């Protein structure tokens, strides 16, 4: 008659126990991914080794991994600011794209002779503005009319991407591209310099980690954002200007995503393409969530995810296995880690001391 497993709510759990559960969850996700590979007739050990090799095997591959970690981290930080406010910004992809558009707007129109720092600064500022504007639109609608931000930000992605596609096929098409629908390469005074083989975006990303951490934990605005996220009524009660807080948080969120667009256009693609955001805006939702909206933990999570992305690209080239394998691993990690929260909140016990007659 009785269930063998009973579920009870747990009181608080120790940090160390939580860490163990998360570690087990990640290991299980890898085992599970291995099983999927086995079913597909692939050798999981070989593939996992190749992923690690591809991500960290040589200096150049590490540089590639770091280059992928930069956009992921900065985007995640932007998302953290919005998510802390319970504002589901799914629009990072569009905000990145518009940031890249802003950077290209400068890059394609300044003379070749202009000094590099000045050009980069202008590109940076326009990118921040464009990303922020793209986030401001859903924010103001949410603040004034209470629209659903999830759908709104999601739709804004497509608008941004189609807008750049239009530029790429129409007004901004490269006249020297022999009809190929692409935008001209940026001049050399528009390209971010490298430090230790990786574009200087990594320094900026680290600055952002510190900034977001400080902002959320040690400033009044950060505190207000957190209060609004937890209880709008209490925020109102405390006399906070909620519309203003929503808008400021989203300007920061979109601005950070905008800088990602500039970094990607300037340092990686060296031009503007419609696919500039490359899914980072969505992957960053996962990394932000996995890091429990903590900017410092987020840096490590993003490094791990960048390694998976880079490893996935590598196995595609070296083993001819689809990079979707890395996607499968990512998905499984998310599944297991989020699933493991159940075990942190509840306790399972098996069997019974007594049975009913």
């Amino acid at each position, binding site marked *: 008659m009785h269930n063998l497993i009973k579920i009870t709510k747990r009181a608080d759990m120790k940090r160390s126990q939580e860490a163990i559960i998360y570690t087990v969850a990640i290991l299980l996700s890898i085992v599970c991914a291995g099983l999927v590979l086995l079913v597909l007739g692939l050798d999981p050990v070989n593939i996992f080794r190749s992923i690690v090799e591809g991500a960290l095997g040589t200096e150049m591959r590490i540089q590639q991994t770091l280059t992928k970690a930069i956009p992921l981290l900065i985007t995640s930080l932007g998302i953290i600011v919005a998510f802390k406010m319970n504002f589901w910004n799914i629009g990072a992809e569009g905000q990145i794209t518009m940031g890249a558009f802003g950077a290209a707007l400068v890059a394609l129109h300044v003379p070749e002779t202009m000094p590099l720092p000045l050009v980069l600064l202008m590109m940076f500022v326009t990118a921040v503005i464009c990303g922020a504007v793209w986030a401001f639109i859903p924010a103001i609608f949410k603040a004034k009319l209470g629209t659903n931000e999830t759908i709104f930000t999601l739709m804004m992605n497509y608008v941004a991407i189609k807008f750049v596609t239009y530029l790429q096929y129409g007004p901004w098409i490269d006249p020297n591209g022999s009809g190929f629908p692409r935008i001209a390469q940026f001049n050399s005074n528009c390209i971010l310099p490298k430090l230790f083989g990786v574009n200087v975006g990594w320094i900026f990303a680290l600055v952002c980690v510190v900034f977001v951490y400080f902002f959320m934990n040690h400033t009044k605005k950060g505190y207000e954002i957190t209060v609004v996220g937890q*209880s709008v009524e209490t925020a109102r*009660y405390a006399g906070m200007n909620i519309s203003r807080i929503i808008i400021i948080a989203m300007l920061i969120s979109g601005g950070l995503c905008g800088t990602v667009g500039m970094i990607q256009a300037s340092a990686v693609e060296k031009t503007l393409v419609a696919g500039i955001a490359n899914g980072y805006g969505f992957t960053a939702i996962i990394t932000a969530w996995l890091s429990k909206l903590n900017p410092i933990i987020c840096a490590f999570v993003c490094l791990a995810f960048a390694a998976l992305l880079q490893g996935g690209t590598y196995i595609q080239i070296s083993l001819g296995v689809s990079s979707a394998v890395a996607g499968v691993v990512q998905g499984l990690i998310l599944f297991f880690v989020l699933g493991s929260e159940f075990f942190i909140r509840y306790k399972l016990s098996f069997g*019974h001391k007594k049975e009913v007659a």
Partner: protein
Amino acid sequence: MQQNIAIEMKHISKSFGEIKANEDVSLEVRQGEIHAVLGENGAGKTTLMNMLSGIYTPDEGTIAINGQEVVFASPKDSIRLGIGMIHQHFKLVDVMTAKENIVIGQKEGFFTKGKALTEKVKALSEQYGLDIDPDKKVYDMSVGEKQTLEIIKVLYRGARILIMDEPTAVLTPQEIRKLFRIVRNMKEQGCAVVIITHKLNEVMEISDRVTVLRKGHSIKTVVTAETTIPELIEMVVGKKTDLSITKEKLPGKELLLRMDEVTVKDSEGKNALTDVSFGLNTYEILGVAGVANSGQKELCESLAGLIKVEKGRIFFHDENIVGKSPRDIIRMGIRMGFIPEDRLGMGLVAGMDIVHNIILKDYQSQPGIRLKRGPCIEKAKKIVRDLDIQTPGINTPVKKLSGGNIQKVLLGREIDSSPKVLITAYPVRGLDIGASYKIYDLLNEQKAEGVGVLFIGEDLDLLMALCDRIVVLCHGEVTGIVDPDTVTKDDLGLLMTGHTLDEIEKMHGKEGKDA
């Protein structure tokens, strides 16, 4: 076999980590008995009942239902054995009708069989004297109706043992009377009813026997008719205590806050307050009496600048504060404390700790953009010490504290800002005896310091004992402002149901009463 014993819990222990919520607790409830479980917050009442309804499993001890020992693996097992729990917070789906709420979660078929169901609900209603319209949507129901629906819901599932967690906390005097009638009917039908409460008057009125819990232990079970309120208090608190509310008439009253023909509309455009006028003085506690939803919430929120005032003026000294936001009010230097009705929903941030909840009131007056925690950490420690807040530390999220301690955090913060006006909406709702008296003392202290306290209450005895004057609201209108020392409870009741002072005077014939 003792067939007439419905519930027998023996030597029950349950711990959560280090905390022993129940230790060696025994409880015996007979069929056809109304049994009160009495104790302060944190005494282990709810934990004990949760074990009875299968939400928790005891670490030690046995539970027997109708003479048979059982082990519950989930609430389903307990429901199957005829145990129904009615929680303090109703678990109903707002957009569904009463009927739909009754059948959701039931296994018998996907579709709700309209007619047969209506018949069954009607039969149940008649059997126990319940009164409900099966096709009414929950969002159209009053609190009393929702509770009736909850009761029908568990009866429909075949409950013969009913557990009610503080059922009267949200009800008006009239609704309480109705509930007690239902409970007595159930008793006559042979059901066992367990009522968790800390209202002593109700224990005396309704229960046959009382079991007192204190600090996780069961102290004693007594026959209600053979005990007295002071005796019960002694068992609950653990020592002889003199619980009386003092009311001092203080001199030096000055008009502090004045509402002048204030009209407020609710979200549907109906008048929530109509031409409300009254004044609040320094050195006084002004009570507000009224049936639930008579405009009390709107009254508080319009004073605090949280809702739009349609018409009228609110003066603080000589300044009209209508149209000002809470932030403007703070900026104008008007120190106003507000204890809202829904403490965790408005007033506190449930997931934040005591320090961060105290910063809420302070941070706007801090210079610069940085959030300075230092002074608030000191304040938090002081409030915890002064108000004797039971908490593992000042960094514990407030949602993990008990109701009384949550209220103390809120009140402590509001008093700490040394307010001129203190608005309190049902400040002792859901609090135990000790905590309630602590709150009354604090309010009296504030009054002695010259603060004008507005006290929205539900318990008429309490309002009359604590307040200097009482404003009575009915359907958003002031029906009278009375002196609690000369008014009778019956007259208050008449005012609450819409009669004016003039009408009451006429009813009494010659003997006039002044406001």
